[in-house]
């Protein structure tokens, strides 16, 4: 699918710039150019796709769906799946959370949605697709949905309602309304989808360039199997370590996948890599701070703890499986 791009990269680096195709610098530059363009194309494509999905399933309709249907246990999975296909913006997480709770959706189901929404997002998917191919991307997406589903189920076992901030508890449950129903013509809304997708690309392109730059540099210079000694699957403690280290890295999620890709090529276990990525986007410090406005510290710690635990289990599972 991207043969034409490889051809362009070869022409640019080896012909136009006249670099030797066998040299470290030539290979690194070629890899850099090819990867940056590929990721940006995929990112735009996935953002557009999610935008169109969101057009037909706006968040208000998702809320109504979740509160009207009795799904006999499948509601956690449903909430998690819907969270996966909803474009995520961290500053909307609080209104979303409060809006769901006020809509009468049980807290555990709301949390399933809230866990998966950032975990499976357009940036992570585009970068995984570019770096690891569609199989690993599917594994990543599926794992995100599982973490959200199980996380919400486990959390619903606690009596969480009392752990919300008092003003949230006092909000009255509202009857289904017409919130968020768009009224503009389809052409305008499609234009909006395009603008949103472009905005996503604009927001992260620099991180992508930095990440791929670091990845390209390492690609040519770090010896093969370098990480196999330290980060292979038989070292179980690398999984929890990866999860903890990733928590403060949120802002640079777009920069991390290309670097992780090189780690994996040079011997890091894939389960550890997946756990690291999930933790970067799923357990973000800024989101924790935002959620503090509606949840008690105890609930936030429990929420992060349960999600971290699920991610660690998945990391172990994939290290054992693959």
């Amino acid at each position, binding site marked *: 699918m991207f043969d034409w791009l490889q051809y362009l990269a070869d022409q640019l680096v080896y012909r136009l710039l006249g670099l030797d195709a066998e040299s470290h610098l030539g290979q690194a530059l070629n890899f850099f150019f090819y990867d940056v363009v590929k990721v940006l194309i995929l990112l735009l494509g996935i953002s557009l796709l999610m935008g169109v999905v969101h057009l037909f399933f706006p968040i*208000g309709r998702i809320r109504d769906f979740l509160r009207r249907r009795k799904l006999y246990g499948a509601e956690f999975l449903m909430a998690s799946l819907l969270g996966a296909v909803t474009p995520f913006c961290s*500053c909307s997480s609080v*209104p979303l959370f409060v*809006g769901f709770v006020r809509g009468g959706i049980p807290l555990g189901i709301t949390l399933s949605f809230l866990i998966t929404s950032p975990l499976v997002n357009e940036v992570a998917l585009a970068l995984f697709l570019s770096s690891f191919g569609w199989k690993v991307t599917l594994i990543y997406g599926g794992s995100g949905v599982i973490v959200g589903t199980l996380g919400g189920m486990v959390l619903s076992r606690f009596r969480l309602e009392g752990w919300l901030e008092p003003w949230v508890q006092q909000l009255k449950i509202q009857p289904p309304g017409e*919130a*968020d129903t768009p009224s503009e013509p389809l052409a*305008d809304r499609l234009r909006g989808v395009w603008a949103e997708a472009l*905005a996503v690309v604009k927001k992260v392109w620099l991180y992508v360039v930095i990440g791929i730059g670091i990845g390209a540099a390492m690609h040519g210079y770090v010896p093969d199997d370098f990480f196999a000694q330290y980060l292979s699957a038989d070292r179980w403690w690398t999984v929890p370590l990866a999860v903890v280290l990733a928590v403060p890295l949120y802002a640079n999620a777009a920069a991390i996948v290309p670097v992780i890709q090189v780690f994996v090529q040079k011997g890091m276990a894939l389960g550890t890599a997946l756990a690291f990525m999930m933790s970067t986007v799923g357990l973000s410090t800024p989101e924790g701070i*935002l959620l503090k*406005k509606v949840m008690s510290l105890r609930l936030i710690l429990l929420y992060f703890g349960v999600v971290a635990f699920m991610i660690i289990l998945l990391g172990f599972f994939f290290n054992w499986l693959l």
Partner: protein
Amino acid sequence: MKSVKILGPGCPKCKRMEALVREYAAKTGLELDIEKVEDMERIMQYDILRTPALVVDGEVKLSGVVPTENQLKEAIG
């Protein structure tokens, strides 16, 4: 005078919406009472799921979008 509130905790999109509303007011010469609401408790008095949101005379007109000029025209008048 119409009361226009921009609801948003301070994300880039929310700031963008405020700037666009002020531009729109300056361009059309409408006298508007514009307020940016950043306090989450006050924001959630309105039934919205995504920020930024635009409230005109107490009614939610837009939410979760950076508005186009047409959308502002329809929402504010």
